[in-house]
């Protein structure tokens, strides 16, 4: 077997473009708000990728990943505040968070990685809740309700870099972010990363080839804890305050949302998820207070209909696009857009009207999509329900049309594959189902509880 070269032209191009994007980012988005948004996305990217080391790479669904992120953040802010006694340069402080996450990973990993699957999920939830409950018991370390604040400007830094201006903070996040993203990718290519995939897909067989699945899971959890801790450390420096909220189930839920929406089957999936969810969170929460509900609907919809996340959509279309068949799909997609938009509008109208009724007793009109209407009126509700039902039916028809087109395209791809069978450059064609799910390797592990 020939090992593929480590550094290929394609890889250099992708990572170079990524680095260039990171450097150029603040030159384009130089406004205060856009810059802090970029910082937030950077932190969440590292966090979501560290989470995907467990979910996507090792098949471990953790409900308590905020533990490593939050305690990494608390450790960093304490190290920052102890600057007089312990002069660690601010540039290196995220590593303190990383080491804290690593140490916690060793402790909690020992308990939780004994088993995979559902048991692991439950234990991770329990540990997450335990640490969150502890945060209120030790106000000296966790700062109680107010949290712990720090000041990242610790004096005249090297070459005048004090991390006072947000832009300098951005480059700190970008630097650590790039290193972490690269390191996590490299890790996924190591024998450990490959064995993690094997343990995810078939623990018994990986045991047969001489690996201890428990040990592989443990190592992956420890390393994932490290990167989550780095993300927490960056967050502590960026916001200069750490509250108990960072440890809560809410944070753990947010990272699940990012990873799943982005797609756990591809390495870059969680990056998309982190960027999208961070932007959406700020955009949607500024216009409506029902944003959590929309996120819940979005998440459940993704799990039901696109379990492979956005990355799986990209992967499917990339192949069709490179075969030059994308234009066969576009018309049906356009056709589906109209009912999809109407359906969204119907749901939004109902949710917003309901919120208007619950929240403000007395006032009779509200502005929705630029129209003044009465949230208690029969007309608007009937309209919304009608729009929802009709568009749902139309969407069903459109989905059927899309499915038929896909079948077409897939047969075409298969025939081409057969006629160019010896073509070295051709990508292997996978079945439709496999492409659909992206996470279907878990499907093989059915009914673990018989007997």
């Amino acid at each position, binding site marked *: 077997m020939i090992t593929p070269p480590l550094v290929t032209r394609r890889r250099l191009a992708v990572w170079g473009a990524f680095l260039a994007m990171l450097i150029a980012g603040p030159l384009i988005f130089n406004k205060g708000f856009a810059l802090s948004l970029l910082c937030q996305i950077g932190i969440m990217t590292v966090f979501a990728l560290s989470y995907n080391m467990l979910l996507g790479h090792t*098949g471990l669904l953790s409900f308590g990943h905020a533990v490593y992120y939050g305690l990494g953040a608390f450790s960093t802010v304490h190290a920052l505040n102890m600057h007089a006694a312990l002069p660690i340069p601010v540039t290196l402080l995220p590593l303190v968070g990383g080491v804290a996450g690593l140490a916690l990973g060793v402790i909690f990993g020992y308990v939780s990685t004994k088993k995979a699957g559902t048991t692991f999920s439950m*234990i991770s939830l*329990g540990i997450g809740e335990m640490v969150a409950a502890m945060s209120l018991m030790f106000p000296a370390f966790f700062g109680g309700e107010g949290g712990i604040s720090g000041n990242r400007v610790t004096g005249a830094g090297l070459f005048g870099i004090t991390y006072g201006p947000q832009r300098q903070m951005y480059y700190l996040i970008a630097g650590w972010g790039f290193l972490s993203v690269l390191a996590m990718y490299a890790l996924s290519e190591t024998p450990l990363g490959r064995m993690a995939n094997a343990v995810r897909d078939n623990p018994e067989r990986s045991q047969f080839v001489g690996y201890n699945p428990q040990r592989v899971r443990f190592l992956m959890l420890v390393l994932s804890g490290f990167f989550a801790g780095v993300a927490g450390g960056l967050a502590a420096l960026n916001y200069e305050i750490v509250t108990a909220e960072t440890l809560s189930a809410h944070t753990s839920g947010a990272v699940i949302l990012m990873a799943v929406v982005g797609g756990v089957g591809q390495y870059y999936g969680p990056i998309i998820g982190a960027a999208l969810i961070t932007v959406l969170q700020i955009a949607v929460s500024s216009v409506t207070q029902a944003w959590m509900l929309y996120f819940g609907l979005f*998440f*459940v919809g993704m*799990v039901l209909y696109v379990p492979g996340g956005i990355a799986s959509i990209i992967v499917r279309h990339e192949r069709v696009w490179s075969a030059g068949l994308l234009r066969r799909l576009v018309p049906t997609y356009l056709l589906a857009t109209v009912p999809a938009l109407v359906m969204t509008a119907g749901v939004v109208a109902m949710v917003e009207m309901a919120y208007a009724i619950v929240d403000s007793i007395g006032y009779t009109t509200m502005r929705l999509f630029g129209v003044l209407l009465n949230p208690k009126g029969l007309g608007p509700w009937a309209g919304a329900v009608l729009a929802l039902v009709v568009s749902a039916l139309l969407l069903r028809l459109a989905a059927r049309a899309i499915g038929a087109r896909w079948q077409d395209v897939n047969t075409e791809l298969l025939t081409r594959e057969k006629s160019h069978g010896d073509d070295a450059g051709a990508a292997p064609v996978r079945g439709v189902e496999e492409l659909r799910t992206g996470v279907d*390797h878990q499907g093989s592990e059915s009914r673990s509880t018989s*007997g």
Partner: protein
Amino acid sequence: MQSALISLLNGVTYGLLLFMLSSGLTLIFSMMGILNFAHAAFYMLGAYFAYQISTYVGFWPGLVFAPLLVGVVGGLVERYGIRKVHRYGHIAELLFTFGLTFLFEEIVKLIWGKATVDYRIPFSLEGSLFTLFNTSFPVYKGFMMLVSVGMLVALYALLTYTRIGLIVRAALSRPEMVEALGHNVPRVFTWTFAGGAAMAGLAGVIGGNAFVTEPGMAAALGPIVFVIVVVGGLGSVVGAFAASLLIGILQTVMVSIDYSVLDIAREIGVKLPPEAALTRLSITQLAPIMPYMLMVLMLIFRPRGLMGARET
């Protein structure tokens, strides 16, 4: 001592309530291999439905209809949600029910608002049942015990002595065989799921007014129910019963103990630094993390749980 007995009784009441949740969860788990993350959300729905019904026709109809409504919701969730994600594997199922908890909480906020709703104990069940060493035990607590024990006896009888129970138990261990004998196993699953949801709903009906009915009630109780299932042993109903009582009693009793670690150390003659945060913790403060501590210890020393047949 007097108050200890009363808090023991309170603990048993709370433990029985927990068992109404954990029994359904563990039954669904052992049958379908699905850990229903949204199980506590059904508890919350039960409380809210009962509150809504009680504003129209009073408490007693709510006691009957709210669990039935929750059961219908549970059945729909199984039929149109879980069955669909089932083919994507266990992780997708867990993620789906995890998303549902979010969704249910937000929908409850949307309909009933973010504040606590005024769901009260019915007038006929107010007052004290008996007085023990000057501390009274409310009638409603007694009623809660009665309902939960009644439900458990009914469940036991249903599973043991009826034909439905026979099929359910058979589908638990040998679903293929049951299917070969002509039973619709997916439908049995749906009914089991709906039944488990209804039991959680009933717990909500009687627990919502005893404790509090607010959108955060599911998130507060959910993790504890999971801990019970782990501590009791995955899939073991008897284990869930023991763990429910254990955690219910421990948590209730611990809340009522005003000692701190420092006081206890002084009692047994050990001197500890009084200014350390750890020694100033009172037992009451430790109560919220006790279930999780118990779970971690259990996993280290007895990974299969109290009554689990196999290692979890």
